[in-house]
C-alpha cells in the first residue's frame, strides 16, 4: 500500500478549504455563486478524506503495518531537525477515522443548517480548514508538526466562534477561546522544548523521544509532563482553563458540535495518549491529571445542573465527559480514554445536532424554557435526542455506558477510590442534568404552543440517524471481557501499553450494577423534578452554581482587568511620566538653563569686556601658578 495516501487525508480538506475560501471571496466581491457549489466542495472533500482513511485503516487492519510519510525537511538547524513527516500508526488512524467520519457527517448537517446564511461559503472554508488542521494534528510525527495542527485547530475555532463577527459577544468569545487556548499552547510549547532539551537534543519525533526517554532526568520529565498537560487543559477545557468552552457556544451549532464533540477538545486527550511513554515514566503526573479530570468532570456537571442555555448545558456536559477521559489517560487507561472519546463523539455530536435542529426550528431560541414553551413536533430530533441522552447517562447497552464504565472500573481497579467516587457521583449528576434537559424540552406539559410539525431536512436527518446508530451500537466495539466482548479497541491501541484491569469478574459486575443504579437514580430524580415542570415558571437565576461559581468574573478581575490596569500604568505612567518626561525634562531644563544664561548676553559692551577680563585673569592666574616652577 502506498503510504503517500497519508498526506491526501490532510490535503483533501485543505484543498476544500482553500477552494471554498477562494470561491467565497469571488462570491462576495465579483459574482454570486450558488450555495450548492460550496456545499458540494465542502462535503465531498471531507468524505474523500474519510474514504482514504478508511482504506488505510482496512489496509492496516489487514497487514498490521505502520505508515510513515516524509514530505520535506521543515527545519534543520544545528541539532534541531524537524521533518514534515506524517505518522499513520494505530492510534492516529483510529483518531483520524472517527474525526473524518464525524466530520463528514457534520459537514452534511451543516449544509442544511447554514442554508441561506450569507457566510455559507466562508463557513465551509473554515470548516474544511478546521478538519485539515485536526488531521494534521492527529497524523503528525513530531510534536512541532502536531503543534501546527493544534494551533490551526485553535485558529479555526476562533474564526468559527466569531463567525457572526458583527456582534461583539461572538468575537469576544472567539478571542477568549483563542487566548485561553494560547495559555495552553504556551504550556505545550514549553513542554516540548523542555522535553527536547531534557533528552539532550537527541531528536524530536515521537519515536525517537520514546526511545531516548531514559536519558532524561526525572524532574525535567515531570516539568515537561506538567507543561504538556497544561496544553491539554487548554485545548480540552479542563480546570482551570475551561472558561472558553461555554462561551464558545455562540458560534453556529455545527461548530459547537464539531469542536466540542468529536475533535478539537479531544485533541488534549489524544496528545496525552501520544505522549504515553512520557507519562508512563512519571506516574505522579498521571495521577495529577486524573484528579484534574475528575474535578473538572464534577465541577462541570454541577454547573450544568442549573444552566438554561441548551448549548451551554451541552458544553458543560462535554467538559464533564472530557474529565472522564482525562481520568482514564491520567491513570494509564489510554485505550479506555480513547474509547470514551470515540463513543462520546457519536452521542455528543448527535446531541448538538439535535439541539441545533431544535434551535433552527424555533427560530434561534436557545433558552431551554423558551424552547420547551414553543415546542413543535420534531419526531426525528426528539427520538435521536433521547438516544443521546440515554447514551450519555450511561444506560446499557448504549455506547456511553461501556466507555464510561470502563473508565470507572479502571479507576477502581487501580485503587483510586476517590476518583472512582467522584466519577460515580458525576455520572449521577450527568444523568440528572441530561434528563432535566430532555424533560424540559420534550416532556414537560406545554399549554401555550400548538404542536405543529416541523419538517426536518434530510441533510439533518441523515447525520442524526447515522450518529444515532453509532450512539446505540458503538459501545459494542470494545465490549469488556466480562460481558463477553473482545476488547477490540484496546487491542487496536495496544501500542499505548494501557494499564491492564486487575479485578475479579464479580467485582466488575458489582461495579456495573452500581453505576447503572446511580445513573437510574439520576434519571429518577430528574423525572420527579422536571417531568411535570411548569415552563412558565423559570428556575431561579441566582446562586453560586447558576453563576458558574463566578469563575469568569474572578478571571476577569485577576487577569484581564489587572493587565489593562498594568498596561495603562506602563504607557501612561512609566513611559510618559517617568522615562519620556525625565528625558524631555532634562532637555527642557538644559534649554531653559541656556535661556537663563542669555542675561549674560545683554548687548552691553562693557560687560563683554568684563567677561573677557575675567577670562584673561583666570587664564593668567593659571599660567602664573603653572610657571611658578620654571
Amino acid at each position: 500500500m502506498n503510504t503517500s495516501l497519508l498526506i491526501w487525508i490532510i490535503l483533501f480538506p485543505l484543498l476544500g478549504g482553500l477552494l471554498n475560501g477562494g470561491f467565497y471571496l469571488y462570491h462576495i466581491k465579483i459574482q454570486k455563486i450558488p450555495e450548492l457549489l460550496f456545499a458540494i466542495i465542502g462535503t465531498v472533500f471531507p468524505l474523500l478524506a474519510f474514504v482514504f482513511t478508511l482504506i488505510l485503516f482496512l489496509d492496516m487492519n489487514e497487514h498490521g503495518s505502520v505508515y510513515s510519510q516524509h514530505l520535506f525537511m521543515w527545519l534543520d538547524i544545528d541539532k534541531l531537525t524537524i521533518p514534515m513527516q506524517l505518522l499513520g500508526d494505530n492510534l492516529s488512524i483510529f483518531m483520524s477515522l472517527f474525526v473524518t467520519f464525524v466530520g463528514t457527517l457534520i459537514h452534511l448537517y451543516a449544509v442544511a443548517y447554514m442554508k441561506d446564511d450569507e457566510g455559507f461559503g466562508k463557513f465551509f472554508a473554515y470548516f474544511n480548514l478546521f478538519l485539515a488542521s485536526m488531521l494534521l494534528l492527529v497524523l503528525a510525527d513530531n510534536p512541532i508538526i502536531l503543534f501546527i495542527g493544534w494551533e490551526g485547530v485553535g485558529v479555526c475555532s476562533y474564526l468559527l466562534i466569531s463567525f457572526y463577527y458583527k456582534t461583539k459577544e461572538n468575537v469576544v468569545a472567539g478571542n477568549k477561546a483563542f487566548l485561553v487556548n494560547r495559555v495552553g499552547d504556551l504550556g505545550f510549547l514549553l513542554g516540548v522544548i523542555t522535553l527536547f532539551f531534557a533528552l539532550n537534543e537527541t531528536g524530536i519525533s515521537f519515536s525517537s523521544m520514546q526511545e531516548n526517554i531514559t536519558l532524561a532526568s526525572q524532574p525535567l520529565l515531570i516539568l515537561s509532563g506538567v507543561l504538556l498537560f497544561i496544553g491539554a487543559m487548554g485545548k480540552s477545557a479542563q480546570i482551570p482553563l475551561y472558561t472558553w468552552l461555554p462561551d464558545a457556544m455562540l458560534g453556529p451549532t455545527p461548530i459547537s458540535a464539531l469542536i466540542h464533540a468529536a475533535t478539537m477538545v479531544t485533541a488534549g486527550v489524544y496528545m496525552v495518549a501520544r505522549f504515553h511513554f512520557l507519562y508512563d515514566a512519571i506516574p505522579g503526573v498521571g495521577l495529577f491529571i486524573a484528579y484534574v479530570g475528575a474535578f473538572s468532570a464534577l465541577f462541570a456537571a454541577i454547573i450544568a445542573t442549573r444552566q438554561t442555555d441548551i448549548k451551554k448545558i451541552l458544553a458543560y456536559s462535554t467538559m464533564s465527559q472530557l474529565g472522564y477521559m482525562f481520568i482514564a489517560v491520567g491513570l494509564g487507561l489510554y485505550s479506555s480514554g480513547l474509547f470514551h472519546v470515540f463513543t462520546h463523539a457519536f452521542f455528543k455530536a448527535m446531541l448538538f445536532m439535535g439541539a441545533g435542529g431544535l434551535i433552527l426550528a424555533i427560530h434561534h431560541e436557545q433558552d431551554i424554557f423558551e424552547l420547551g414553551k414553543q415546542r413543535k413536533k420534531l419526531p426525528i430530533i426528539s427520538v435521536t435526542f433521547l438516544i443521546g441522552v440515554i447514551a450519555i447517562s450511561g444506560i446499557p447497552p448504549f455506547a456511553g455506558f461501556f466507555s464510561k464504565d470502563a473508565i470507572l472500573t479502571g479507576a477502581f481497579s487501580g485503587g483510586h477510590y476517590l476518583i472512582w467516587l467522584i466519577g460515580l457521583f458525576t455520572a449521577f449528576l450527568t444523568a440528572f442534568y441530561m434528563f432535566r434537559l430532555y424533560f424540559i424540552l420534550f416532556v414537560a406539559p406545554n399549554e401555550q404552543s400548538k404542536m405543529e410539525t416541523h419538517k426536518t431536512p434530510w441533510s439533518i436527518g441523515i447525520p442524526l440517524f447515522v450518529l444515532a446508530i453509532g450512539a446505540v451500537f458503538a459501545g459494542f466495539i470494545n465490549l469488556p471481557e466480562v460481558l463477553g466482548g473482545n476488547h477490540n479497541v484496546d487491542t487496536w491501541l495496544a501500542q499505548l501499553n494501557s494499564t491492564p484491569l486487575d479485578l475479579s469478574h464479580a467485582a466488575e459486575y458489582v461495579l456495573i450494577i452500581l453505576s447503572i443504579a446511580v445513573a437510574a437514580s439520576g434519571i429518577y430524580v430528574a423525572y420527579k423534578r422536571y417531568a411535570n415542570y411548569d415552563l412558565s415558571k423559570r428556575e431561579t437565576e441566582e446562586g453560586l452554581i447558576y453563576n458558574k461559581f463566578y469563575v469568569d468574573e474572578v478571571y476577569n478581575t485577576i487577569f484581564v482587568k489587572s493587565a489593562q490596569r498594568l498596561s495603562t500604568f506602563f504607557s501612561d505612567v512609566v513611559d510618559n511620566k517617568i522615562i519620556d518626561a525625565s528625558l524631555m525634562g532634562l532637555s527642557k531644563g538644559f534649554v531653559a538653563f541656556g535661556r537663563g544664561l542669555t542675561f549674560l548676553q545683554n548687548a552691553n559692551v562693557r560687560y563683554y569686556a568684563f567677561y573677557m577680563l575675567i577670562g584673561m585673569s583666570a587664564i593668567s592666574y593659571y599660567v602664573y601658578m603653572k610657571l611658578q616652577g620654571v
Partner: protein
Amino acid sequence: MTTLLGYGTIAIILFSIGVIGVVARRNIFVMYMSIELMLNAVNLLLVVFSKLHQDMDGQIIAMMIIAIAAAEAAIFLTVMILLFRSKGSLDSDLFIKLKPEINR
C-alpha cells in the same frame, strides 16, 4: 630706580589703568582713551626692551604702534560721532539694541 623693573612697573600700572578704564567706564570716549593709554603702556615697555637689547626694533615697533593708534583714532572718532548722532549721548549702556531675541 630707573631700572628695567621700575619702568616695567610703570608700564604695568598704566596698562592696568587702561584696562580698568575700558571695563569700568560707561563713557565711550573714556573707554577709547583707556585703550590709547594701554597702547602707550605697551610702547613704553617696547622702548624699555629696545634699550635692554640695545636694538632699534623696539622703538620702530613703538613708532608703528603710534601710527596704528592714529588710524584707529580716525575710525574711533568717526564711530563716536555716528553714535552721538543716533542717541545724543556717549553712554555705552544705551547702545544695547542688538540684545538677542530669545524664544521664551
